[in-house]
C-alpha cells in the first residue's frame, strides 16, 4: 500500500492533516482519502488519483480549474468529483496536485490546480478510465475523521 501525507491540503478544523493511500484491486487500483472533514477526505482521494498516474510532487500548480458537482448522496458525490477530474485530465491534458473542496447540501464546489502533462517529466504510468462504484464509500469513522474511497478503472 502506498500512502502519502497531504502536501497541499491546509490544516483541518481540528488541526489534523489529510492523508491518502492506494489499496489493491485485482486488475486495477483503489484510492482512499482520509481527513478531518468529508471535503478534506475528497481532496486526499483526488491526490491519490493523481498518484495513480504520477508522483503528485512532480506536478506544479500553474493552472486552476473550477469544478462543481451535485449528487443525491455523498458517495455519488465522490464518484462525480473523481470522474469530473478524470474528464478534465483527459480533455485538457492536465495533472492536478492541489485541491480546495467545499461541500454543502449535496453540492460540491472546488478548485483543482495543476499543469499540462509533460511526458518527460511526469512519466505518466497509466491513464485513468473512470472512478467506479466498486468499494465506493464515504464514512465518518469512530474517531470522527472521514474516509472517502473507491476503485479506479485504469
Amino acid at each position, binding site marked *: *500500500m*502506498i500512502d502519502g501525507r497531504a502536501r497541499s491540503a491546509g490544516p483541518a478544523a481540528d488541526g489534523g492533516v489529510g492523508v491518502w493511500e*492506494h489499496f*489493491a*484491486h*485485482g*486488475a*486495477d*487500483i483503489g484510492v482512499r482519502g482520509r481527513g478531518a472533514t468529508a471535503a478534506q477526505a475528497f481532496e486526499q482521494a483526488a491526490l491519490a488519483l493523481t498518484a495513480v*498516474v504520477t508522483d503528485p510532487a512532480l506536478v506544479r500548480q500553474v493552472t486552476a480549474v473550477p469544478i462543481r458537482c451535485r449528487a*443525491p448522496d455523498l458517495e*455519488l458525490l465522490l*464518484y*462525480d468529483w473523481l*470522474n469530473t477530474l*478524470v*474528464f478534465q485530465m*483527459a*480533455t485538457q*491534458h492536465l495533472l492536478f496536485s492541489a485541491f480546495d473542496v467545499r461541500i454543502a447540501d449535496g453540492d460540491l464546489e472546488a478548485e483543482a490546480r495543476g499543469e*499540462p*502533462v509533460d*511526458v518527460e517529466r*511526469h*512519466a*505518466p*504510468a*497509466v*491513464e485513468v*478510465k*473512470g*472512478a*467506479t*462504484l*466498486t468499494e*465506493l464509500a464515504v464514512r465518518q469513522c469512530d474517531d470522527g475523521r472521514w474516509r472517502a474511497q473507491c*476503485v479506479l*478503472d*485504469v
Partner: protein
Amino acid sequence: MNRAGMHRDGDYRWVIEPTGDMRVPAVLYADEVLLDDMDDKVRWQLCNVASLPGIVGAAYAMPDAHWGYGFPIGGVAAFDAEAGGVVSAGGVGFDISCGVRTLVSACTRDDIAGVQPVLAHELARAIPAGVGSTGRLRLSEREMDAMLTGGARWAVAQGYGSSDDLAHIEEHGCIAGADPHALSQRARDRQRDEMGTLGSGNHYLEVQWIAEVFDRAAATAFGLEQGRVVVSIHCGSRGLGHQVGTDYLRDMVIAAPSHGLQLPDRELACAPIRSDLGQRYLGAMRAAMNCALANRQILTHLCRESFRRILPGFDGQLLYDVSHNICKEELHDVNGRQRRLHVHRKGATRAFGPEHEAVPESMRAHGQPVLIGGSMGTASYVLAGAATGEALSWSSACHGAGRSMSRHQATKQWQGRKVVDELAARGILICSPSLRGVAEEAPGAYKSVDRVVDVAERAGLARKVARLGPLICVKG
C-alpha cells in the same frame, strides 16, 4: 476460492446451485489451480449476476476470471427482454468494445530480424500511446455522428484501410442500432482528439510471430503459417466509451428503485432492456462500439503505413477483429428453442462455432477466430470457436491471462528498466513512455495465459489454433 456449496461437473466445470436471490446457477470454467487462484469476490460477483432479473441459463465465469465491477471480469450472462431481462452498464464495463484485432503478413521472423529496432522506433513514433497522447483527426459534430453510426465502415470510407478489412470484423465493422444522441456532451468531448490512439494500461500494439501451430487446417484457413509475422492491436473505445460507462452507471444506480430493482451491489447497476434508460444505454453503448471499431481501423492503417516505410510491400491482411467488453443481441438455443438474448461479455470473447453464419465464409468450417492477448513477453493465442461452446457459455471463451497481482505489488517486485532490458535480451523490444507503466505490466504480474487457454480448450469453449510469440510491443 472457497469451494463450499460448489460441485464439480466434469474436469473443468464447477457449479453453484441457486440459493437465496439467485435465479439460475453460477458456473465457473477452471482447473483446480485456476479455481484456487480466483478471488472469492469472483464467486460473490457471479452469484450476484445470477440474481438479476431475466437471466437465462446460468451466470458463467471464464478460466481467466477475476474481481471486476459488479460482473467479474471474465463474466458472461444472457438476458431475455421478454422475461423482464436487464442490460447492465457494469456488465459491459468502462472500456466498451475493448477488443483485439490481428493482422497477418507474408513476412517471416527472419525478414523482421534485421530491422526490428528501426521498426520498433517507427511504430512507437507513429502510434499515439499513453497519457496525453492525441490522434491526428479532429471530428466535427457531424463527422462524429457519422463515425458513431458507421464504425470501421466510416473509417474505411475516410481512407483508413480497405473494404476487404470489413468482412473480417465483427458485424462487418458496423454495429446497428447506435444512437449518437444518447451520448453526453462530455462523452463527445473526451473523443475530440483521441481517434486513432492506443490508450495505456494493458492496451498494446504488438508485432508477433507464429511460434506454433496446433490445428493445421484451421490455421491454413486463417492464413497462419509457422514463422510468419502478425500484428495484434488491443484497445477499445477510448475516452468516449469510458464516459458512456461513467454516465450510465450513475443513471442506472439512481433509477434502479424506480425500476423495482434491488441491487445487491451498486456496481451491478442495470435497467430493464425494455425501459427508456435501457434503450438509451444500448444506443449509446453501440455508438461506443462503433467508436472502438473505427479506432482500431485507424490504428491498423497507421500500423500498415509504418511497416511499409521499413518493409515496402508489407500487406497485413486482417485476420479478425473481435471485442471482449460488450452486450450484444444474439439468437441462442435455449432447451431446443431459439431465443433472442442480450449477451453480456465482460472480459470474455464471443466464440461462435463452425458453420455459424456470422463467421466469414472462408473460415466458417473452422469456427470464429478468437483472439487471446497475453502480457508483454508472453504468448498470445489464436483459438477457434468450438461447437460445444454454445451449450456451455453462449459461445464465449476467455479473453486473456488476467492479472495475478496488483499494480502496486508489481512495481515493488520489478523495475521498468530491468523488465525492458531482460525482454530485449530475449529478442522482445518494448516501447513505452513510462517505465513505471512497464513495471506495472510486467509479464510476471499476469497469470499463465498457457494454462488459461489449455483449460478453455479442454472445457470445450474453443480450440487452439496457433500460439504467437512477441517481438515488439508498443504500450502507452
